[in-house]
């Protein structure tokens, strides 16, 4: 164990994506933990010491909203300087992984368990920016990724 814990930024839009993200938190209990999401109330139920960074919610059909979101995420990355970024989606995760790669972070994508028949659109777009690229359905796994390691169901 290092003297300085690693900094991780865990990213998900509010709702199901964030619920899934939180179910994986034992994986980063040894890290300095930052979350990025769209709902301020999540700050009331985080592990001790974890910090919540807020971003507006937007999807790819909302050009102004998505531009604001991208800027806000870029700013958060510059401020936090995470060594590891993990996301379950959606658009916020795409920007966090994409910009994070430019800043030298290692990145993890866990595609939402909601996408049972095919990877999410964002999951497909984020492929080349994800160092660890996972699906939660064994039959969606492929030799070159996404890989299957288990699911948030437990």
């Amino acid at each position: 164990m290092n003297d300085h814990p690693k900094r991780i930024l865990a990213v998900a839009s509010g709702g199901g994506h964030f619920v899934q993200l939180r179910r994986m938190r034992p994986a980063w209990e040894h890290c300095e933990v930052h979350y990025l999401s769209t709902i301020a109330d999540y700050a009331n139920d985080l592990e001790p010491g974890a910090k919540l960074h807020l971003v507006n919610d937007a999807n790819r059909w909302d050009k102004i909203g998505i531009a604001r979101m991208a800027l806000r995420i870029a700013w958060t990355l510059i401020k936090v300087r995470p060594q590891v970024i993990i996301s379950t989606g959606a658009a916020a995760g795409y920007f966090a992984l994409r910009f994070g790669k430019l800043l030298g972070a290692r990145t993890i994508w866990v595609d939402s368990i909601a996408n049972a028949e095919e990877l999410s659109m964002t999951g497909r777009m984020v492929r080349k920016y994800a160092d660890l690229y996972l699906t939660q359905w064994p039959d969606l796994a492929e030799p070159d990724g996404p890989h299957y390691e288990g699911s948030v169901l437990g």
Partner: protein
Amino acid sequence: MIFVTVGTQLAFERMVRVIDEWAGSTTPAPKVFAQIGPSEFVPKHIEHKAFIEPSEFVERARAAEAIVAHAGMGSILTALSYGKPIVIMPRRADLGEQRNDHQLSTAARFKGQPGVFVASDETELPAILDSLRDLQAAEPIPPFASPSLIKAIHDFIDEV
């Protein structure tokens, strides 16, 4: 109390309308609280709010006898983690209820999962609502993701 939820983004009037009608025509009147999103349809027979905070969502799920929801993973995982029976009805893209049809595949995958009951559409919902008291909850799922998934992520972080 029956807790109805349509998730953090869009209304789901096709589901909420049927639940409201069911509540209005059932005696004794069932106690229902519904989170209905930005809905133009205003329910007459059930308590409702457009949105609630995640902490209230958790409290209501925990206190509910049963949950009725769109086929969203936040709703499903929350119900399963508190051992509450959940009825899910998938949104459909062709009706403008969602941008794609992933909820249809979610519903198909979770059909048969203990504690999860699928209403394919609004016509199947009233009969399931009538039998709500008899639906069997499953044992709560563990609070965390599968150990193999957590280990894979943990090991990846350690290599950085």
